[in-house]
């Protein structure tokens, strides 16, 4: 081995290669297919970009990744803008991505914006035009691929909800050149031949913008607009709105959500009818209870509960009255008795009989006048002398004046 001009350390080499790569491949645009995509909790995204001949590691830091307009997934073809660099610790090289777009999206995006503006100005998105969903959804038309995720998701919701509904699936292709025409024809056929359908769900599962493109086609939008049956647009692309989303009466983020919306309304109705029954029963019960209380209150009144009580009340009153009458009478008599007794006593004191009892006598003339002085009588008068017991007839012999 000859003496080399320069001997590098690993670090020196890596650093120099890093500088070379960064100056040579700064802000380049690269097309490739994503593989091994991983988003860390830090928000940084790590992946590889590959084509048929090879691959390169890529990283998109969080502060750039927040501007992503789609969810990168393995297999999606993208166009990125970034700078190639070398990671000295590992000596591996990678591209630090600043921007990432789905391939062909720029053009599609432009088409989308133009069509959106056009249909909007024609009034296809008018809120006033949106019809309410039927209150009694019994028959649901589903326009989607019979093998796709959408129909599976809808049937899963149906199973989980135990809903009695009639689902009519109109099978169509939901991506590729034939898709817009088939979807349009299906909407028209459903309206013409199955007018008793209550609501149409038109949609598909998620995919790349290209895959979903049929739902951004003008003929599909116009068919949705013309549909007499209310339409729910259900394209499994939660971030961006499709033209069909703007045109439909209701937009569901995914087919499952569409099914939930439709079945939810029916369950809501059943619940509100049940609820009405409960409320009616309660009000009537309450009313009856109020009446019952009044009746009971009336029945509890003593006179109704025990008529005898009512009578005995009367009787008691009568007894009391009678008693007091007797009392009054007695009192009256007592007072008479008392008075007559005093009178009698006083009379007794005044009565001469008591005096006669002690031996005094009363002399009376024949005419009954009491002789109080000797000169009231003359000799020879016949007088009567009244004693305590009996009297004596006597003749005056002489009188002596006193």
């Amino acid at each position: 081995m000859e003496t080399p001009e320069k001997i590098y350390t690993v670090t020196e080499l890596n650093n120099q290669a890093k500088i070379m790569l960064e100056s040579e491949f700064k802000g380049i645009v690269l097309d490739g297919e994503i593989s091994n995509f991983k988003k860390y909790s830090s928000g940084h995204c790590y992946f590889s970009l590959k084509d048929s001949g090879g691959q390169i590691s890529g990283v998109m830091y969080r502060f750039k990744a927040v501007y992503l307009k789609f969810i990168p997934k393995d297999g999606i073809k993208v166009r990125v803008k970034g700078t190639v660099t070398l990671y000295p610790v590992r000596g591996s090289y990678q591209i630090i991505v600043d921007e990432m777009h789905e391939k062909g999206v720029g053009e599609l995006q432009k088409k989308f914006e133009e069509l959106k503006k056009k249909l909007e100005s024609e009034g296809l998105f008018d809120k006033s035009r949106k019809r309410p969903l039927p209150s009694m959804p019994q028959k649901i038309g589903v326009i989607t691929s019979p093998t796709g995720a959408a129909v599976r998701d809808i049937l899963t919701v149906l199973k989980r909800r135990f809903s009695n509904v009639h689902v009519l699936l109109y099978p169509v292709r939901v991506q590729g050149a034939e898709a817009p025409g088939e979807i349009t024809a299906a909407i028209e056929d459903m309206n013409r031949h199955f007018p008793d359908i209550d609501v149409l769900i038109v949609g598909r599962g998620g995919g790349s913008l290209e895959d979903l493109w049929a739902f951004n086609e003008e003929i599909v939008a116009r068919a949705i607009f013309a549909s007499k049956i209310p339409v729910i647009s259900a394209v499994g692309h939660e971030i961006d709105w499709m033209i069909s989303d703007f045109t439909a009466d209701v937009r569901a983020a995914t087919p499952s959500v569409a099914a939930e919306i439709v079945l939810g309304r029916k369950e809501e109705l059943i619940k509100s009818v049940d609820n009405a029954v409960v409320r009616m029963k309660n009000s009537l019960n309450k009313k009856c209870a109020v009446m019952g209380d009044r009746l009971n209150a009336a029945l509890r009144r003593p006179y109704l509960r025990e008529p005898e009580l009512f009578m005995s009340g009367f009787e008691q009153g009568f007894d009391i009255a009678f008693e007091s009458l007797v009392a009054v009478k007695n009192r009256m008599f007592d007072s008479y008795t008392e008075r007559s007794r005093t009178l009698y006593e006083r009379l007794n004191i005044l009565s001469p009989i008591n005096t006669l009892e002690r031996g005094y006598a009363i002399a009376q003339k024949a005419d009954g006048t009491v002789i109080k002085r000797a000169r009231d009588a003359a000799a020879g008068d016949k007088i009567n002398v009244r004693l305590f017991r009996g009297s004596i007839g006597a003749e005056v012999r002489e009188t002596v004046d006193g």
Partner: protein
Amino acid sequence: MSEKKQALKKDFEKELKRLEEIVALLEKGDSPLDESIKLFEEGIEKASDMKKNLEESKRKIEIISKKSGLFTTEKFGDDEI
């Protein structure tokens, strides 16, 4: 059949409104008892009719096929759900 169904649907909205009205009247509780009972009977009858309508349809999943302009439907899915 379809016309009849259509009419049924329109009626349903009307019936629902009437039912709500009855509930409100009963809850207000101003009407005399015999009137309340009449309202209650009407409401219960309506509610059970409506529930019958809501629940009468069987769960059915069918796929449409179009052959030379004619539409036929057949059962879709692998299981009886």
